[in-house]
């Protein structure tokens, strides 16, 4: 088999849900309403989505809530029937989209393993052969004969995951798996994913955890309101997602600002760099961040420039401008850099806002909300926006 063989091919996949305004589930309602035209709301959950997944690929799906991610996964798993479009799958696909489906709290862990494995498609013999391995992996040796209802949610997920990885399908579908479970177990899970990848298994992975998506996926699909927005590199997809996400919620604000815009002077490019000038989006905690901007048609006169850093949830962290710093943009320059030295921003995602304004601070020439994104990576602990060095003492 070739390495880059396409294992799933989806063409123009469309799914329409018919949602009756009042769902008739008794016969009286059916009879009473027999002459009334049924009022059905059609919801296009997926709108001509096409993509390909290669064999052995780790394929991520991201998108905001209600974007159609789970519907897509359910159609791939053949739980839902597509309304239109074509799906070709060259291999067996796991029937499973969620961990621990069919787990029964009244049964022991042992019984649940056998039931869950059966749902996964394992025979009794296969389950018996793997039983030890499953329990060992889940680290629940002492609790095998305990009822599941006495397990913590983390323990249940561990058990569920340990069974799920035993699935014999070529393609695994996973929906929001690692939401629970401690860091150590998550690490273990990723170890398993790597092994599965080595075995040339294809994994289709839906998650809101953008960090995981970036770290593990080979290809990421971004979907929004049922429409495919982007397929490609994980970093790009995550950034597109962040952008679309924030643009969406700030459209009104953007329109307002557009009206205020004057002149042709515009910020046309913005990105983050490290100290040596390499474009970068993920920084270590405390690392210098250079924000770089390109401006076109910079007009003569006293023109000011400002940049601010915001946390993804909108919290204004820090901002500077040439006016405050008593600076002047040199005429004829079109490139501006601001170097933030050893910022103590806590790990997380941030965005930049940049603006050009006239000599009087009010005259806005260009305003670009969320013009660039960056991430801080690291182990600095503490809550809030910024890290403050501290010492404890007791008396």
């Amino acid at each position, binding site marked *: 088999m070739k390495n880059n063989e396409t294992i799933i091919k989806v063409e123009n996949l469309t799914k329409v849900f018919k949602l009756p305004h009042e769902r008739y589930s008794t016969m009286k309602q059916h009879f009473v309403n027999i002459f009334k035209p049924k009022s059905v709301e059609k919801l296009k959950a997926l709108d001509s989505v096409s993509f390909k997944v290669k064999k052995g690929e780790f394929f991520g799906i991201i998108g905001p809530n209600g974007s159609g991610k789970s519907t897509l996964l359910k159609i791939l798993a053949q*739980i839902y029937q597509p309304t239109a479009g074509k799906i070709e799958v060259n291999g067996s696909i796991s*029937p499973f989209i969620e961990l621990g489906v069919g787990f029964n709290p009244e049964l022991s862990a042992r019984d649940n393993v056998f039931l869950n494995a059966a749902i996964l498609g394992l*025979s009794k013999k296969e389950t018996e052969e793997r039983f030890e391995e499953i329990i060992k992996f889940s680290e629940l040796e002492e609790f095998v004969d305990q009822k599941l209802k006495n397990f913590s949610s983390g323990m249940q997920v561990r058990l569920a995951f340990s069974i799920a990885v035993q699935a014999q399908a070529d393609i695994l579908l996973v929906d929001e798996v690692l939401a629970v479970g401690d860091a150590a177990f998550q690490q273990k899970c990723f170890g398993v994913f790597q092994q599965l990848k080595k075995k040339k298994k294809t994994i289709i992975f839906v998650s809101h955890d953008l960090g995981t998506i970036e770290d593990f996926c080979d290809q990421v699909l971004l979907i929004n309101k049922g429409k495919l927005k982007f397929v490609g590199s994980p970093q790009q997809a995550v950034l597109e997602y962040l952008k679309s996400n924030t643009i969406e919620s700030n459209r009104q604000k953007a329109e307002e600002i557009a009206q205020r815009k004057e002149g042709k002077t515009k910020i046309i490019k913005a990105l983050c760099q490290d100290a040596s000038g390499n474009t970068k989006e993920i920084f270590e905690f405390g690392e210098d961040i250079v924000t770089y901007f390109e401006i076109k048609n910079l007009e003569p006169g006293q023109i000011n420039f400002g940049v601010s850093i915001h946390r993804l949830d909108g919290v204004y962290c820090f901002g500077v401008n040439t006016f405050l710093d008593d600076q002047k943009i040199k005429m004829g320059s079109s490139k501006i850099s601001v170097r933030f030295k050893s910022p103590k921003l806590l790990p997380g995602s941030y965005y930049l806002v940049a603006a050009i304004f006239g000599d009087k601070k009010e005259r806005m020439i260009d305003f670009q909300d969320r013009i660039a994104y960056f991430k801080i990576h690291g182990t600095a602990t503490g809550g809030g926006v910024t890290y403050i060095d501290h010492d404890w003492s007791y008396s």
Partner: protein
Amino acid sequence: MRKTNYLNLTLQMALTDFKLKYAGSILGYIWSLVKPLLFFGVLYVVFSVFFRFGKGVPNYPVYLLLGIVMWSFFLESTLNGMHSVVSRGDLIRKVNFPKIIIVLATVLTSLLTFLLNLIIVFIFMFFSKIVPSATILLFIPIIAELVIFTLGVSLILATLYTKFRDFSHIWEVGLQVLFYATPIIYPLSLVPAKFVKFMMVNPIAQIFQDARWALISRDTATSWSLISYPKNLIILAIVLATVLVGFIIFLKSAKNFAEEI
């Protein structure tokens, strides 16, 4: 998935249901033996001691017990079968597997209880000094017919119930009607002659009487002796039609279950 694994899934689901039925109770599986015995005790006192239905019927206690045990199977299977698809909605929305397994497993669970109950029937037969004859072998195809018919009814009900929740009530009433329209607690000899033929067209009545004929007494009146050939073939036609209709409507609706329920 391979076919053998669907078999495992069916078995696992049936066993799980069976285990859950008795989970948390002290007597556990013994309940499946005690329950029909208690039910039998009540009916026996009322209908044999007070109303004297059993007069002139050889081995009336065993006759009654066998009827109750078979009825319990039919009742439990069809009621649970009807609700099974809707109550497994969570599974259906998250896993792709042949939905018919759910109904099969439910019937299988009841069959397990039924087989346990039969042990009691055999014990009663032993104490009633009934000497089994070769006709006991015919009991197996009779049970097979009961299971197939029950499966057909369960499939129809399960499908209808996904669309109309009314069937939960309709079937409750239906079961009451069937219970009294079938010679379970009373012997056929008490039924006025003009009604007997109509009564025996009902596959449940036919199956119950056949079972009594095969196990207890060759004197038991059956559909085959009461209704002339080929008219009596209509009973088998009903059974066959029920199963076919059941499979067809169930399989036709099954692919939309995930979205509908």
